[in-house]
């Protein structure tokens, strides 16, 4: 055995605290080490060349690189070894930066620790064996979950890249929250006018299978080979016959909460969310339908000339196989009921910013007329309150919702356009206008549209006669201020859908304390998740406005296309494997595996044993610890290797 040791200075990052030449000197004395040297930057091309040359010149068959975390450069040095003809799994890293030089100041002690860490690497590498990756075939289809603007963008881009796309949307139409908006900042173009063409593109695209009113039920498998079960929720309407004429809607006697209009106005138990819905098909909401509740009615059935109504309809599970998944489940507006001090739910004229969008929208329940919900009168004094459900630790929402400041400025502008003799007061803590053209947009609101910005937070709203008394502060003046308002609009924050954690568990991806999905790396892998093949787009990951959501939709699609461009994918050989002879079939490994990588396998004699699906396994090693008989080992981290490391450190 011929081991080579390479000690990196990392400029002064390591050499500032660790005496590298001394480490080299010590390494020369370790068993099987035939060559040791140090260098300023081993990751640089010249450093890699140094390693490659040494492998060939000294016929090295094992290499220890003593530098930074394997997270940073393991890949780099393995590639260098492979180029020099060495199996890349015969390279070990000794992390003397993150785990040594960066956290110590005593040079003598740090040098001794670095020597120990290198010895550990040498002991381990001498037990390393050649490993070879396996390859598996890839399904080229893409699943997109969520049909808001981010999901639409991802679906269209993936389809354009030549893939078949299944787009699952839990509501009866795609469009998401963007379909609720009247105009969009900072250009004031009509939201529907820019969104509906995209929705139609989805509908007519032959590569996209649109499954509206469907939900993902179960996800199994792994990158390149996901098996997905999808629930088609009963619509009680045969969509192949429904033309969206809405004849039935007019006749339906059951008036219900209008989710699309955020409770502003009512809809029917059989309905279409909005005129430009895609698909333009009605559904019956069973929980409110008179026929389902009382056994009588069936008016819709009578008036439907296409005989599309089907009261016997039932949920159905369908299955799809895909290679990659884009999650774009979006957000829900924060429910301000938690702000009892603002009287939302108690005072009709305190509404949310999303309700206000519906009010301002020409297709909304008031046909675009701004009216007080209480008495239908046109408000003259309107108060906007920012950070409702954002930047509020006490309400469990510490984060900034990003889009509300701009949305509020936009709504102030629209208010002035609708009611020229109105005054808008906008309470803010900080105006966050960090986007292209955003700050200029806020300037316009202030200068051209007379938006009255007040720096402070509102503490209390109560009714006084027909007016709402708004008690706020002007912190710039250091004075409490009181406004008698006709209408109060709460700029509610962006919150993840309530069922986000449930979906995350189905997909085996992480979510944070609020329910936002967690990306692989906040800067360098922003649309990837820790489950290979599952990507994120839009506000399901973090609060995001439309431009960012669209950009992310495209980014997620690009990532999926990159992955699916290969016919076969390489599976890391550092995975668990079962020694069948020693397996007793207790399946403790199955219970602890966080990736569902353990399969039960029946042997010829009917005995059940564990089997590792190597393409799903991440090599975390939990199964190895749980196994009572030592039947499971993780390649590259065998008991023998770990014990050798401990021996190097402790003996």
């Amino acid at each position, binding site marked *: 055995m011929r081991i080579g040791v390479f000690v990196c200075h990392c400029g002064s990052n390591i050499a500032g605290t660790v005496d590298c030449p001394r480490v080299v000197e010590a390494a020369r004395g370790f068993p099987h080490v035939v060559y040791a040297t140090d260098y300023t930057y081993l990751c640089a091309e010249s450093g890699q060349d140094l390693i490659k040359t040494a492998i060939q010149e000294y016929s090295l068959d094992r290499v220890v690189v003593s530098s930074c975390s394997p997270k940073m450069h393991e890949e780099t040095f393995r590639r260098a070894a492979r180029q020099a003809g060495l199996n890349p799994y015969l390279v070990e890293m000794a992390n003397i930066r993150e785990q040594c030089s960066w956290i110590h100041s005593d040079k003598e002690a740090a040098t001794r620790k670095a020597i120990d860490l290198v010895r550990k690497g040498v002991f381990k590498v001498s037990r390393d064996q050649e490993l070879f990756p396996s390859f598996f075939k890839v399904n080229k289809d893409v699943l997109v979950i969520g049909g808001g603007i981010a999901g639409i963008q991802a679906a269209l881009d993936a389809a354009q890249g030549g893939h078949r796309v299944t787009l699952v949307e839990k509501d009866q139409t795609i469009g998401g929250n963007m379909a609720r908006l009247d105009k969009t900042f900072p250009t004031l173009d009509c939201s529907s006018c820019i969104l509906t063409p995209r929705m139609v593109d989805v509908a007519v695209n032959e590569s996209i299978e649109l499954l509206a009113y469907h939900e993902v039920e179960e996800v199994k498998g792994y990158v390149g080979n996901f098996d997905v079960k999808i629930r088609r929720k009963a619509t009680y309407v045969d969509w192949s016959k429904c033309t969206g004429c809405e004849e039935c809607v007019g006749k339906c006697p059951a008036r219900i909460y209008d989710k699309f209009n955020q409770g502003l106005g009512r809809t029917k138990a059989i309905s279409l969310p909005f005129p430009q819905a895609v698909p333009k098909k009605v559904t019956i909401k069973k929980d409110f339908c008179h026929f389902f509740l009382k056994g009588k009615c069936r008016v819709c059935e009578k008036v439907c000339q296409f005989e599309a109504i089907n009261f016997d309809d039932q949920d159905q599970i369908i299955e799809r196989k895909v290679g990659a998944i884009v999650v774009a489940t979006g957000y829900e507006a924060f429910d301000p009921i938690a702000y*009892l*001090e603002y009287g939302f739910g*108690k005072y009709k004229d305190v509404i949310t910013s999303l309700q206000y969008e519906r009010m301002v929208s020409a297709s909304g329940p008031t046909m675009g007329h701004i009216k007080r919900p209480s008495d239908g009168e046109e408000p003259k004094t309107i108060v906007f309150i920012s950070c409702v459900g954002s930047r509020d630790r006490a309400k469990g929402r510490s984060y900034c919702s990003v889009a509300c400041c701009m949305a509020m400025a936009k709504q102030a502008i629209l208010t002035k356009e609708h009611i020229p003799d109105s005054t808008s007061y906008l309470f803010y803590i900080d105006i966050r206008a960090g986007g292209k053209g955003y700050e200029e947009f806020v300037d316009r609101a202030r200068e051209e549209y007379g938006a009255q910005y007040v720096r402070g937070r509102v503490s209390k709203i*109560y*009714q*006084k*006669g027909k007016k709402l*008394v708004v008690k706020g502060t002007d912190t710039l003046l250091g004075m409490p201020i009181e406004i008698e308002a006709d209408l109060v609009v709460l700029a509610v924050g962006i919150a993840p859908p309530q069922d986000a954690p449930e979906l995350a568990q189905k997909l085996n991806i992480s979510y944070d304390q609020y329910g936002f999905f967690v990306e692989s790396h906040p800067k360098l892998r922003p649309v990837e998740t820790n489950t290979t093949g599952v990507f994120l787009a839009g506000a399901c990951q973090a609060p995001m406005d439309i431009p960012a959501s669209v950009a992310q939709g495209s980014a997620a699609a690009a990532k999926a296309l990159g992955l699916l461009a290969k016919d076969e994918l390489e599976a890391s050989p550092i995975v668990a494997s079962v020694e069948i002879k020693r397996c007793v079939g207790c399946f403790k490994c199955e219970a602890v595996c966080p990736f569902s990588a353990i399969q039960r396998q029946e042997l010829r004699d009917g005995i059940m044993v564990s089997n590792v699906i190597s393409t799903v396994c991440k090599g975390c090693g939990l199964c190895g610890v749980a196994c009572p008989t030592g039947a499971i080992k993780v390649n590259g981290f065998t008991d023998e290797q770990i014990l050798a490391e401990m021996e190097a450190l402790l003996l």
Partner: protein
Amino acid sequence: MTIKYAYYPGCSLESLAREYNVSTRLVCQDLDIELVEIPDWNCCGAAPACQVDHMLSSALSARNLALAESFKLNVMAPCPKCFNRLKEADLEMKDNPDHLREINNLLEKPYHKGVQVKSLLQVLYQDVDRELISCRVKIPLEGLRVACYYGCMNARPADINDFQNPEDPTSMEEILAPLGAELVDYPLKTYCCGAAFGLARVDLVLRLANELLEMATLVGADVIAVACPLCQQNLDLRQLQVNARYGTRYNIPILYLTQLMGLAFGHSSKELWLDKHFVKFRKLPGATQAVSSGAR
């Protein structure tokens, strides 16, 4: 089943708020709540003691808690400031063993963390079945528009008043609903009345009392129900001072919730000391005899 409490009336209920004491005792009797007055109780120190010295405030409360402890009874206080002082002292001592030791060093008879403290409002809300209240009603308060005013200490802070939402408490409304009165929405129900500033800075109190009375007028209240001696005094005693200063003509009786309950339970206005208020309550429910029985 009788519920039993160690009763802490507090100083106000011995003087300016005697009618609160009297009506509390009557109503508790009607509702099978037995009150055992803590013998030789002392003042809780109210706001001034804790504004001068926090330890002093805790020690004054702790002596009362130790006295109640010897009866193995939980404490009930009708005055929300007393409740606030007693409960905060209790919670702090239960929370922090060092603090408990320091306080006990100041006392002759140590406290062993053996009681719980409740306000009268909390007891009426949590321990008394609304059905029982309904059963006791002899003269429903029909047609009487009541605004429930909690003030600060019956609503806040949240860890002391942990039995209801500090932002929109409804205990008083729920207790009074069985009486048949009409409960109006009173948006300022948890606003401050100016508390103890009446002695040194009456101007501060009058300004707040004016806001409160204006709102009560606006929502068409016949009477404001309170559960705090200071709220009652600042709105009743000082109503004429408010009228004098702001040129207003408020004439809104301020009744303790126990007085309203007492009336509905059939006690006379004299028994309930209604005649002791500055602003007289004339819109008596049911029998007209109640009006004439009001002593002058």
